[in-house]
């Protein structure tokens, strides 16, 4: 009886049960990842051949890093976008979470409504913002003109800085509500006793936030910052529909650059190499995220 049970334990039943899921993951994630990694070491211009060409070693990567000023320009634009986007999202999300943490019907309704911007398609958000900012009939353009008469004749999407501001604003509008919900979760997990004790000891609202709430909320904010950085690195749809990377190339990010190489220029090997450099950046950020997440669990 004991021998039979031991034999059963040795059978890889768990592997059999896991096999369909593992196969699915392998087909849908690992194979494309592996294939595109191989592609990044090959020459494959679709205009010249319909199947991948010769192995070219690291030359796609070398060209990107030594002979492509547009790649570095896209890196610079990405850096500007991420910095502004992540900082603004954090400030808005944190502020909104602090305002909405109290219970009450209105706050519950507001929290429920927060999910709405998040469920909207980024492409649709981009198109909508393009309409909002249209210099002839855009409602946001008109309102800004009323509030700041000096900006009445500003053509938002024809100005490099304002176009970047428009993209950041649309992305913050999309993501800040979701991040607010995450921070609200973090706020809810902070024991109220410490805050109450501080208040009894005479601490002001700001002191309670600075010395009690913020230190305990920091791991959640850090996770939000890392997640938002990852999402900002991948941002494409909104930029494509709102500015097309313009004016000039002032809003062409790395994700947009990769898209262009693959789907506009049909240079699959080069696009794969650029995509892997983007993936490397994402992996670094994912590493930070995992460390923060595990640190929190510990």
């Amino acid at each position: 009886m004991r021998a039979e049970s031991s034999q059963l334990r040795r059978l890889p039943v768990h592997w059999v049960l896991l096999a369909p899921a593992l196969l699915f993951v392998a087909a849908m994630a690992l194979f494309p990842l592996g294939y595109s990694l191989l592609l990044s070491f090959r020459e494959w211009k679709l205009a010249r051949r319909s199947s991948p060409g010769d192995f070219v070693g690291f030359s796609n990567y070398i060209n990107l890093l030594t002979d492509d000023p547009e790649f570095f320009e896209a890196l610079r634009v990405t850096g500007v976008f991420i910095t502004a986007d992540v900082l603004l999202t954090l400030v808005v999300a944190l502020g909104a979470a602090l305002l909405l943490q109290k219970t009450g019907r209105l706050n519950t309704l507001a929290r429920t409504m927060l999910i709405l911007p998040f469920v909207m398609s980024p492409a649709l958000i981009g198109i909508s913002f393009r309409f909002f900012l249209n210099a002839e009939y855009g409602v946001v353009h008109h309102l800004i003109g009323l509030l700041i008469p000096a900006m009445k004749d500003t053509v938002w999407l024809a100005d490099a800085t304002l176009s970047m501001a428009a993209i950041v604003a649309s992305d913050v509008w999309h993501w800040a509500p979701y991040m607010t919900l995450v921070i609200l979760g973090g706020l809810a997990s902070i024991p109220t006793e410490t805050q109450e004790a501080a208040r009894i000891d005479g601490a002001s609202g700001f002191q309670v936030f600075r010395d009690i709430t913020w230190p305990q909320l920091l791991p959640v904010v850090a996770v939000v910052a890392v997640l938002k950085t990852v999402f900002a690195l991948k941002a494409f749809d909104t930029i494509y529909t709102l500015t097309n990377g313009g004016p000039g190339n002032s809003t062409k990010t790395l994700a947009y650059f990769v898209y262009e190489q693959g789907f506009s220029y049909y240079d699959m090997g080069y696009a794969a190499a650029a995509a892997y450099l983007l993936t490397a950046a994402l992996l670094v950020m994912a590493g930070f995220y995992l460390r923060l997440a595990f640190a929190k669990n510990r």
Partner: protein
Amino acid sequence: MKRRNILQVTAAGVGAGIAPWAFSQGSSAMLKPGKPYAGTEVNLLTVVAPQFKAHEAKLAEFEALTGIKVKYQYVPFGSTREKLTAELVGASAQYDVLSAMDVWGPSLYNLFEPLNGMLAEKKIDMQARYPNAHLRAARDGNGNGKNVLGFPIRGHVQLMFYRKDIFNQLGLKPPATWNDMVEAGKLIQSKTNLSGVAMYYGKTGGQNLMIWFNYLWGMGADLLDAKGQPAFNSPAGIAATQAYMDVLIKHKAAPAAAASFNETDAVNSVAQGKSAMVPVWWWRYASLVDPKTSTLKPEQVGFAPLPSMPGKDNTTYTNTWFYGINKNSKKKAAAMEFLTWLSDPEIERSVLLDKSMNEVVAMQTKNLLDGDVNARYNGMHVYGAQALKGAKGTPLFAQWPQVSDVLEAAISELASGQKQVKPALDEAAAKVRRIMRA
């Protein structure tokens, strides 16, 4: 002489300069007898257009003739190139007939089956049917090769659309030259609350190059020289680009918003009563007179050939879509039967004359000069034929998508006032040289 007769005579005059008339017989007669492919299902991947919906509505006729079923799968313009790329990368046989735009052709030649043998077998004379500017878009070898890869199915020439009521009120004539356009625009701005001309300098799929090309050609400049190297930054190219930008920057005859406009924004500007003129593809006529999309009535919208440089012929940038057969298709013969039927000039003509829609697209020379078609659209197609006669067509070379991106970024930077014309074009030329070398 009645107006219709005048149009017919004009059409005949234009036609005489285009090609020897060898108008083909109806394509239905070219279908294989005995329904050899009955029961076959042909899958078609096509961009969205009202014209194609009208074709789809006629499929019962084709099915009755051949027993072949055709299934249309529509894809929005913005996703079409990605979809075709996926088909090419995957060597898929999912679709038998594919639609592609001219400028993508050189990158997608490997996706299409040459039709020469099948065309010869059916005795279809493509030269007689289509103007060269459209036909070259469906040829390999950058438009000069020996293989025909598809049937031109949808194509456009540019016209100048203008507010007829405003022009009448101010005693203006449609502008014959680009300078006239600027002067008319300035006068309209001074006498009405409308902007002069809705240009589009923003960055969207190379749209800000489509009028620029007319300035370039009109000044005797060109995109590339005979060696395939950049020529757009020649003195003539710089003068042409300066004149093109000056409409917005110096003369302010365009709305300030034109710096970020794409083609749709510009058409909307006229349709919403904000601007008085827009130089644009003829297919935009439908949205300018459609009450769902425009505040204008048909009698308020006039059109004329695109202006030219003083003393020079009219030019037009062209746009051509073609339907070709997927090289990986398992049903090529049935797909060819479908294309044979669909390319019957009578099918195109019936869509043009369908009064339930304002679909102006005519590809076939015969229909461009058709009296009834021109009577319905007040001679628009005669203008089209005239413009197509000397049209250079779109740039066809594999690196065009990259070159186009460089140039449209340069134009967009110029419009935003970030750069001056010469340094911007010189910088773009350096980038283009690098692209052409790679």
